[in-house]
């Protein structure tokens, strides 16, 4: 594969920031020998039986784009923690390559590797990994201290980083004096103080209780708005993965079984394993209006009069219909009662009976928020993008989506 190597920041990046190719880790003696069984497609269990070696990661390949939150998700023993440690080489890969900015980490000598770890990769740990003998500030400046940066400068940077995570007032405390959530903020501040290109977060929120976990997820997303870091996030919690991931890689037995956006994974599970996994997910948090909307029945305000409207409603069995113009700009809706009345009075257009109190959502509105709107609404909810009617959502579609069927992934052609 041809590759452009880029070291200088000002150049335009034309390779993904992280590229992982055929990365494998086999634990135990004679690991190299066992890799040929991987190529033959033997399973983790078969290889364990044959050679006594444990497969940690099995030929993983993926790219992570700059500024993306890429989640690696799997149950314990799936190899996700091993995979993240292969990326900064806390664990030596048995085979394969990890390119950071186009440089192969797996082939670096220890000095270059150290530089990459100092400049480009920072890690946040599940059990926080804070140094108990150092204050919060001293923890946050650790990465900079290791680089030999001047004392005042590094204290300044560490303080800024701590303020960013809301710990500006705790800099002289020791980690043992802080709650779990606050300790992990220190962990995050320590990782950010280096201003790395990539954040590796290994089950960073898994040790926190659910409320704090959610709070931290929100904060991470908020920080990400302004930081635009590349984040590789490891988790065993599918809800967490769906919440924060731009893309998700699902792992099983050391293998990546599917990579996709949260929607793709929910809607098109690659196999039974993924399907089982996503079965219990609260779909209302992930699916959006776009996924459950239907093609709207409309009448054209310029062309159509009450008779056409009534005819269409009768044919489709509707009690109301949306009114647009030729460019699909939404004007409002009319109800069956009003239309029959207008027909009796021989009205020749719909303007007199047009109602404009349209319940409206955007294509990206999560389903959760649609519940309330649709509950109070006598008419189907309109999905509107830049003033144009994209589709409608009826109550039945919401229920069907929750039940896990009848979902359209990319909207429909309209």
């Amino acid at each position, binding site marked *: 594969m041809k590759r452009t190597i880029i070291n200088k920041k000002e150049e335009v990046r034309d390779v993904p920031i992280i590229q992982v190719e055929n990365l494998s880790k086999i634990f135990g003696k004679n690991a190299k020998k066992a890799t040929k069984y991987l190529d033959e497609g033997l399973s983790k269990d078969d290889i364990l039986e044959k050679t006594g070696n444990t497969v940690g990661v099995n030929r993983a390949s993926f790219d992570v784009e700059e500024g993306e939150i890429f989640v690696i998700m799997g149950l314990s023993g799936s190899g996700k923690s091993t995979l993240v440690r292969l990326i900064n080489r*806390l664990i030596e890969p048995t085979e394969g390559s990890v390119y950071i900015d186009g440089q192969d980490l797996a082939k670096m000598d220890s000095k270059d590797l150290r*530089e990459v*770890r*100092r400049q480009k990769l920072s890690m946040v*740990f599940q059990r926080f990994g804070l140094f108990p003998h150092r204050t919060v500030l001293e923890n946050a400046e650790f990465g900079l201290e*290791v680089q030999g940066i001047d004392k005042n400068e590094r204290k300044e940077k560490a303080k800024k980083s701590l303020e960013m995570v809301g710990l500006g007032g705790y800099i002289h405390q020791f980690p043992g004096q802080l709650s779990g959530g606050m300790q992990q903020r220190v962990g995050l501040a320590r990782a950010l103080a280096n201003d790395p290109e990539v954040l590796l977060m290994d089950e960073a929120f898994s040790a926190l209780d659910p409320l704090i976990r959610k709070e931290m997820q929100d904060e991470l997303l908020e920080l990400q708005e302004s930081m635009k870091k590349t984040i590789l996030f490891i988790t065993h919690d599918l809800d967490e993965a769906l919440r924060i991931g731009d893309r998700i890689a699902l792992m099983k037995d050391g293998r990546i079984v599917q990579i996709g956006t949260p929607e793709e994974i929910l809607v098109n599970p690659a196999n039974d394993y993924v399907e089982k996994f996503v079965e219990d997910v609260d779909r209302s948090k992930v699916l959006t209006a776009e996924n459950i909307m239907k093609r709207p029945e409309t009448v054209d305000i310029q062309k159509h009069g009450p008779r056409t409207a009534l005819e269409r409603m009768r044919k489709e069995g509707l009690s109301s219909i949306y009114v647009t113009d030729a460019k699909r700009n939404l004007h409002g809706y009319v109800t069956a009662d009003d239309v029959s009345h207008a027909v009796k009075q021989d009205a020749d257009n719909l303007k007199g009976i047009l109602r404009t109190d349209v319940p409206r959502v955007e294509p990206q509105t999560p389903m959760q928020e649609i519940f309330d709107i649709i509950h109070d609404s006598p008419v189907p909810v309109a999905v509107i993008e830049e003033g144009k009617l994209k589709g409608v959502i009826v109550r039945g579609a919401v229920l069907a989506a929750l039940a896990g069927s009848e979902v359209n992934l990319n909207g429909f052609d309209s």
Partner: protein
Amino acid sequence: MGLIPKLPVAEWIDTATEWTTDTFEFLFDFIKEDFGDFIEIVAEDWLMGIPIWLFIIVVGVLAFFVSGKKLGLTAFAVIGLWFIANQELWEELMNTFTLVIFASLISVIIGVPFGIWMAKSKMAEKILTPVLDFMQTMPAFVYLIPAVAFFSIGMVPGVFASVIFATPPTVRFTNLGIRQVSHELIEASDAFGTTGAQKLFKVQLPMAKKTIMAGINQTVMLALSMVVIASMIGAKGLGQTVITGLQRAEVGTGFVAGLGIVILAIIIDRFTQNLNTQRGD
């Protein structure tokens, strides 16, 4: 049994000792002369040069602050030292103190690096563990023999034998302390790109400090327990008084000197334990 004649192991060791004595004579002589002089200066010029009342007050004040402003240790130290002075054993006490200080210092200087080496290398651990076991189980009297061969009699061979006997806890506890540092903290250190030395000095040693200090406390106590044995080869101090008591069958003399050792032991023990606090606890 008759098939194999008695192996001349004792002769081999004698030969080895003689060879060592001859080969390193210049080094042993240098240590014996110059180091011996230095010990004498510390004991007789420096420590004994301090007026007894001043010494007791200084120790009392230190005890007060070291123990966190509690009066117990302070009172014990002041009364204990006054008692020893009252029994006219002050010079002996200073000699013993000097012996313990030197033996402990040398043990720590040797022990900590070996402990670090042991923690960093599996091979080193495999080699050092049986050596340490040997050093600790071999009766301490045995060390007196080569000590005399190398350094004749006096303080220097006393320190030498004490060091061999007292070093193992420092090595073991340093090793243990470093190995106890949690895996995640080592990963955290590595992930931020520390060099081996940075990891050692910024993470491993500070985190192992408490355990290492516990080992050093053990080392000091063992060095103190060698005082009587070392006095058999001419090391001056309270031990000599105990031996005198034994030779003359004077229970009282021996007991009072023994009491002096106990008082010194308790003071040193409480001092080192109280100094063993860690940031962030």
